[in-house]
């Protein structure tokens, strides 16, 4: 049982420009060798619904596009105790992931099926481009800040889980 563990997921396609930032941040976090933490990278958000089942908490790092300057960091608590996400916007825009099923859909489906961890934090990194190719210079330059923010959130989640254990 992994109830006392924290899952870290770097979400996104490594080929699609700044969409690679999730996996890049997760990879850097993994280097620290955290106790009680599993770090993975995934491209398909639907996998989250099963992947995080049984974990006490999860940290998801993903690229977002909201019109803010590239590299802007967004932090959102979406765990089982939080408010539902506006999934209709993701579906309507067709930008949420493969076949209009994105992170918001995965979170809400997991909430319905009872697999959503109590604590889930999403660190969103404002992207500049999802075109094929490497990450944009702005995102690469901001990678250290994204890793530091994600690490701080991970420490908080780990403490949360351990205090409940």
């Amino acid at each position, binding site marked *: 049982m992994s109830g006392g563990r924290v899952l870290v997921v770097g979400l996104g396609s490594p080929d699609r420009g700044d969409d690679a930032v999730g996996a890049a941040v997760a990879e850097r976090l993994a280097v620290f060798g955290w106790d009680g933490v599993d770090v993975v990278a995934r*491209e398909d958000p*639907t996998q989250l619904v099963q992947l995080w089942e049984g974990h006490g908490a999860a940290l998801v790092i993903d690229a977002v596009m909201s019109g803010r300057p590239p590299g802007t960091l967004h932090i959102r608590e979406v765990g089982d105790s939080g408010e539902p996400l506006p*999934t209709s916007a993701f*579906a309507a825009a*067709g930008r949420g992931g*493969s*076949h209009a099923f994105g992170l918001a859909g995965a979170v809400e489906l997991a909430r*319905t*099926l009872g697999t959503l961890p109590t604590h889930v934090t999403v660190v969103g990194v404002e992207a500049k481009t999802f075109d094929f190719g490497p990450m944009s210079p702005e995102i690469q330059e901001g990678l250290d800040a994204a890793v530091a923010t994600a690490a701080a959130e991970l420490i908080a989640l780990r403490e949360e889980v351990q205090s409940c254990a």
Partner: protein
Amino acid sequence: MTHQLKDGGQVMHLGMLARVEGEGGMHIEFENGHVKEVKLNIFEPPRFYEGFLRGRKFTEPPDITARICGICPVAYQSASTEAMETICGARTTNAIQEMRRLLYCGEWIESHALHIFMLHAPDFLGYESVLEMAKDLPEVVQMALRLKKAGNDLMTAVGGRAIHPVNVKVGGFYRMPTVAELQRLRPALAQGRDDALAAVDLVAGFDFPDFEQDYTYVALRGDRYPLERGSHVVTTTGLRFPIAEIPDHIREFHVEHSNALHAHFDGEPYFVGPLARYTLNFDQLSPATQEAALRAGLTEECRNPFKSIIVRTVELAYAFEEALRIIDGWHDGHAPSVPVAPRPGEGIGASEAPRGLIWHRYVIDADGIITDAQIVPPTSQNQASIEADLRKAAEQWTDLDDHMLTHRCEEAIRNYDPCISCATHFLDLRVTRS
């Protein structure tokens, strides 16, 4: 959104389709109670793949074209590798073909499981989306996620990644998976086969409208049910011709309201996809999947696009069966690839993507540099059939209120599981400067 026209006509316009991949809309215009005009609007921007393949090496299309779609990358890889091997006169081994088929099974499982249960089933069960459906039918959604995961794991084991596999190359694979790696997948695949066969009965219980369409079906045909390749193309009009002759029959053309090229077969609209594949290859399904299809009320020919959900579920079960067959017969020690040396020429490669026939045509020079490329995915080819279905749906259900009619028309589009990202991979771009 619907509004009255001054002449008493009416326009129904839906700006953004839900539960499809990519960005598209539809436009239906009525006049005196009859449908005057129907358009499937595909406004997702074109992506110019064929343009930037020119000048690249003949070994690059499997990796480049796989990026066109996150749902059916293997279809692109199979068609492009076959085209290049045909041009270069390379003969792959049976083991390489079996491994390609296994990888293709993973793609069918991922794609069909997603569409059947997460995108299409809510239409028949009266839910706005799978999120609402999961509240009442959690066990069905959990099963769907299990099935999809089995496909993801198969793609990862054979292709190296669950999306956009990286293990495929012209001539075969970079590395063959081992018996031990494949056998680890077996329990989930066996469960998947049983679940998919049971799911055929589940979807057969949905209500289906009377909606028969007399399209020309076009699909691959070979020595077994077509996935990764076929030896010929066959049609319900009785034609049978080699893959190399596809461009003699299929012509692409541009229409103003779509960023995806339309296509005609011998000058007429046609239909590719699960219904065509099933109708033209029913005899090559396994006994268990044939039995499941007949038990579900299908005959050997299926003409109702709303029943594509049953056919997809039959094919899902077949993909699990095929995956198990290949894994159980696999031995270690097969060479992962054969050498392929470039030689100048033109060639076609074709496979059956989850959404239907996909074909690629390439021309390469003596150095193996691509001088021309053409990629024709299923959703492009089906646009005319989708519009014909929309016209029939709008005529047949004119009495429904706007909301219900819009919903019905959206369902008619989702019957095709359209992949708009695939369809907009290309548009001829002309810039005029004065």
